């Protein structure tokens, strides 16, 4: 599904070049659950934003479903994100003044669907996340775990083929983090392709494959012995 070929990303800070990724080549198959791990500054978040069609690489090619995504115009890239990619951010980034239902409805605001269909889909997605009856609550009125589930519901309401998550457990307490990971595992079992950035080795055990990044390069690729069977993914 995803083919990254020799991807390099350079940032310029006050005229000084900082290399975030150096010739990364990575393939992710459809339905696969990949964890990107590594220390701070290893380039994992940069890699995720490149996969999310938000951060053009300095060199190399990125193809998703055979589409050269950085060859698209900026507006078409936005359309691509809308159709193909669901994001779960580290800090969830729920819009605080919108209810749970409205947060989930956000991606549908630019979809060509009737208002009823939009509400039906969002309500259904919230129910799937175990949040039936809490549609009208504001994020501040929900627990951390519930907020995480709203964020996942928002990422999936468009039924995107690819789910990207940037440290989804980073800001959550351990119980809530486990709930989110369990949800990811469940989604993966239903066939969802997931790429997750984490610095939490236990969280990485939920994935089928763990990609270790170091200094902007893939240092190691490994498969957990029993993917998804750790207590965090139960």
């Amino acid at each position, binding site marked *: 599904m995803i083919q990254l070929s020799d991807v390099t990303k350079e940032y310029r800070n006050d005229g000084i070049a900082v290399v975030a990724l150096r010739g990364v080549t990575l393939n992710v198959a459809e339905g696969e659950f990949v964890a990107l791990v590594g220390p701070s500054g290893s380039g994992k978040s940069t890699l995720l934003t490149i996969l999310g069609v938000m951060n053009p690489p300095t060199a190399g090619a990125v193809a998703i479903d055979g589409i050269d995504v950085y060859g698209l115009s900026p507006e078409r890239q936005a359309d691509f*994100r809308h159709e193909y990619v669901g994001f779960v951010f580290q800090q969830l980034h729920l819009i605080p*003044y919108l209810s749970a239902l409205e947060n989930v409805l956000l991606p*549908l605001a630019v979809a060509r669907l009737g208002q009823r269909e939009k509400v039906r889909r969002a309500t259904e997605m919230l129910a799937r996340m175990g949040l039936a009856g809490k549609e009208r609550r504001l994020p501040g009125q929900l627990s951390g775990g519930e907020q995480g589930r709203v964020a996942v519901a928002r990422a999936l309401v468009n039924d995107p083929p690819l789910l990207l998550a940037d440290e989804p457990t980073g800001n959550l307490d351990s119980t809530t983090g486990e709930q989110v990971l369990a949800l990811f595992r469940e989604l993966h079992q239903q066939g969802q392709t997931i790429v997750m950035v984490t610095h939490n080795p236990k969280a990485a055990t939920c994935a089928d494959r763990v990609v270790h990044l170091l200094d902007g390069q893939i240092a190691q690729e490994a498969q957990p012995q029993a993917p998804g069977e750790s207590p965090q993914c139960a």
Partner: protein
Amino acid sequence: MRLTDIAWNNVRRRWGKVTLVALGLAIGVATAVALLAITETMRTDVATRLDQYGANIIVVPKAQALTLRYGGLTVSSAAYDVGQLTMADARRIRTIRNAANVSVVAPKLLGVMEMQGQQVLVAGVDFPEELRLKGWWDLRGNAPQGSDQLVAGARLAEHAGLKPGSTVVLRVPAPPQQTATLAGGKAASAAGQQFQVAGVLAENGSADDDLLFVDLGAVQKLLGRPDAVSLIEVSALCIACPIEDMVTQIGEALPQARVTALRQAVTLRMETAGQLERFAWALSAVVLAIGALVVFTTMLGAVAERQAEIGVFRAIGFRQSHIARIILTEAAAVSIAGGLVGWAGGMVAATILAPAFVQVSGPPVWDPGLALGAIGAAVAVGLLASLYPAWRAARLDPCTALRSL
């Protein structure tokens, strides 16, 4: 959930800043509306006053003969008129197609008479019309109450020692041969007629200073020329009245007369009104520009504060044009509110303030065109001032925006 819902939600959430933007626009619009409404009222008021301030059309006989001069105008001597004017002609002016625009019709009969052994120029006038025509007259004493009362010009009064209450005798000069040739006239009374000076004019630098203003009927009788008129001064009451049309219409009604528009007076009226309006527009533009600046800075600040939110929108697939639409929808909604409040505030201000600027009896006219214009201007200013902030928001790099958290 639609883009407009997002915009509306944001308007509700950020009502403090939204109110500031709306208020900035409302003050601008209110000032513009108040100025324009007051100016319009002033324009009408000034035009009405100017219209009533003097004649702008002069009707004289076509005949060429010995002349009398009146107020810089050369007037054919009544004694030698071939096609002379009559009172009926004065009445006929009120029947032209544009009669509604005719404010004052002031017929005059000019003649030379003898007073205290001296010859003086006498103007027989219809006092009520004359007083309306010459609103600038500063009269010491009273306006004449009857046909035996007169008004004396300043220099003439000084020279002849006339004061309010004095009495004078006017008679047609005895020997001149012209009297013998009065066209169809009766012999003038050699005994003359006694008049009381009702008022004396303050000096105004015009021909009026050297004239005696006497009741028209009395002068006609003294000169032995009943019904005769030397000239008719007409004041047309309107801002942009079709003076040329009215000249033509009066000319058609009075074929024996020469009808002249005093262009200077008309031009002056138009210029005065135009200057007032230009001033109002210029001031409105400045105040609206300040309003635009308030919108611009507030919207730019709001975009900076909402970077993360915009980053989320972009990450989940909103196009740049979607972001710009959200910002501009918010700006339009706030501008409409600002325009409405500004229009209402401006009209209230105009109603309260107008009497301080102009002595008008009624309130300014509530013109729906002005309301639509005010709201339209507010929306235009609001949107224009929000274009750059919207563009900035749309161009935000989603990665940078999300990192800003």
